[in-house]
């Protein structure tokens, strides 16, 4: 009964959410793959991308109303700036917070606690520096309806998110499968010790992994911010959800993160057709707990190396 009339529009919303979850989830999964660390501060990498895109577009658009080619340029540049900022923050995070611990062979608990600390530090700092109210990214384009699927309207924003996410996911998948960098990541993920004996520079690979995850997370931050505004604590729930998605797909597994993100986005939105939206998180976390109970390695299993 509750599924009938808005199923397709909610499916489209779900896909939209799912692509963003997937982009963020990749950051968790990549880092987990090489370090076996839940990088709690990844949600702040995401947030930093949102802020960077916000500032760029605010400065660019001013009080004007962009259109045509300018709109395209704005979205592209915003995403790029978000990505670069996310990558930078992720890089610094690894350098300043995690590397000293790694050097010292600190216990795993120390990493997790540091990650939580970094997360709190970064979002509070952003709140301090940029103000504590959520801000809207200026209107970049007319969000017209493009076409309908079984009565569910597809808007420009849905296409932008799906298109850019697919492009980035594809590039990443090829990067990990084909390039030397990808080989290095897979080698470190499988066995860091052996990899280092074979001449792989582990520090560099880990840095690069953080940067790649940061690029995707930062880009997601901007794409998310277009529709949902940007605030200093914006990363908390999306981060949690994306981590759930990563576990759902099999943490450490790149394609798993993509699949997990999309699956979570869909299930969440289908779920709330029948119940109140306030139960959304319960659905997400119940899925997490059930998956962990019955298939702890996730839908696709846990190996980063296996994704290629």
């Amino acid at each position: 009964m509750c599924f009938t009339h808005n199923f397709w529009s909610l499916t489209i919303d779900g896909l939209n959410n799912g692509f963003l979850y997937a982009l963020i989830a990749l950051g968790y999964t990549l880092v987990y793959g090489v370090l076996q660390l839940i990088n709690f501060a990844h949600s702040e990498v995401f947030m930093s991308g949102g802020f960077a895109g916000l500032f760029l577009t605010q400065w660019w658009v001013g009080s004007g109303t962009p259109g045509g080619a300018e709109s395209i340029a704005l979205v592209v540049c915003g995403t790029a700036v978000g990505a670069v900022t996310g990558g930078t923050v992720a890089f610094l995070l690894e350098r300043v917070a995690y590397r000293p611990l790694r050097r010292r062979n600190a216990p795993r608990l120390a990493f997790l606690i540091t990650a939580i600390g970094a997360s709190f530090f970064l979002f509070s700092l952003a709140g301090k520096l940029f103000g504590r109210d959520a801000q809207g990214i200026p209107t970049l384009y007319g969000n017209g309806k493009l076409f309908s699927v079984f009565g569910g309207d597809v808007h420009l924003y849905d296409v932008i998110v799906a298109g850019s996410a697919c492009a980035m996911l594809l590039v990443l998948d090829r990067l990990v499968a084909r390039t030397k960098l990808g080989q290095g990541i897979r080698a470190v993920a499988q066995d860091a010790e052996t990899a280092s004996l074979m001449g792989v520079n582990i520090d560099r690979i880990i840095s690069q992994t953080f940067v790649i995850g940061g690029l995707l997370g930062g880009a997601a931050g901007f794409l998310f911010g277009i529709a949902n505004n940007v605030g200093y604590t914006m990363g908390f729930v999306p981060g949690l959800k994306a981590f759930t998605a990563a576990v759902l797909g099999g943490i450490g597994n790149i394609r798993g993160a993509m699949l997990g993100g999309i699956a979570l986005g869909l299930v969440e939105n289908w779920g709330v057709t029948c119940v109140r939206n306030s139960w959304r998180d319960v659905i997400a976390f119940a899925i997490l707990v059930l998956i962990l109970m019955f298939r702890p390695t996730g839908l696709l299993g846990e190996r980063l190396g296996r994704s290629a």
Partner: protein
Amino acid sequence: MDRKFIVRAALPIALGAVALTACSGSSGSGSTGNNGGGGKKTYTIGFQGPLSGGNAALGINEKDGAQLAIDQANAKGDLPFKLQLKPADDQGSADGSPPAARSLIGDSNVIAVVGPSFSGASDAAGKLYSQANLLMVTPSATLPDLVNHGFTTFYRAVADDFAQGPPDADYLIKKAGAKKVFLIDDTTDYGKGLASAFKGELSKAGGKLAGSDSAPQTSTCIPGATGSTSQYPSEASKVKSSGADSVFYAGYYCDFALLAKALRNAGFKGQLMSGDGSDDSKYVQGAGAANANGTLLSCQCSDIASNPNGASFISAYKSAFHVDPGAYSAESFDVTNAVISVLKGLGSNPTRQAVVSAFASVNYQGLTKAITFGSDHNLKVQTAFLYKVVNGKITYVGDLSKLV
């Protein structure tokens, strides 16, 4: 090796600093009652509200309003004593409320308190103030239940949610031409209270409830909130498929902005309406002017800018705090002045007990409303006002009770 020495070096310093603040902390707590200017005694009016955390903006508005009232009273010089304001930060939460209340209760110079700003904080502090016989007048806590909890010193100098929700429904149906309303609350006590007040009147006004939902506050807006921002597109889908021609949102401005944005993005063209929690220019900023235009907002707060007597308040406020008065600044100003008017009649040695008993019969005409209470400690005349977003500005429409 290198790291350890830093710790060893830093720890004694840190400990020293802690010790230093500790010393200063203990010596700084008691305040002196007799060193006011001109040989007059100094009494303190407390303010309890959120000065930090997600709702700090509101608390600071109210604190500044109270401060202005006190500064003006001192400047006038017709009081038998001097007044000062003592702010206590409760972060707007039930948790932070008792310590804040105690810091005011424990200061024997505090003879009345303006606040708390929020309902939850009022609930958590009510007993403490009652036991201490200390007057507490909230300028903004609207949860109807509050007056039924047996707080003997509690007064609500603002209309409760029943003054706002029902006339909102009346207006939306009878004047704005809505027929099917989709009702969304934000799961907070405020949001749920307002939503149920609205819902109760809706069918009486001849409207239909197309659907209802609860969308929790999101982490984008409130630190630590559990709602996920991605709920709003699906909310928009639900609204559209329900066939509603209007949406009433019971919640705060930041999330309302996200909802409005999602609704307009999904092509929903109907009427949007919300209550005092959304009556903030940041709503327009967050949603984007194009999306926010046409939104109806009700508030128990009157529009100080369109108030014929408001000009001097605004200019005084601006010169004191370098910003325009915000939501509830004027209400807090009025409440503080009402308290001061009572103090005036109590001579040079007012006691807490005397203030509480005198306040029951206060009759003060403020900028925003007449402050005089019924036996239930609610305002005798409860009013709410209507606003509308026009061209990206929140503009005053009129007194809700007179509009419908």
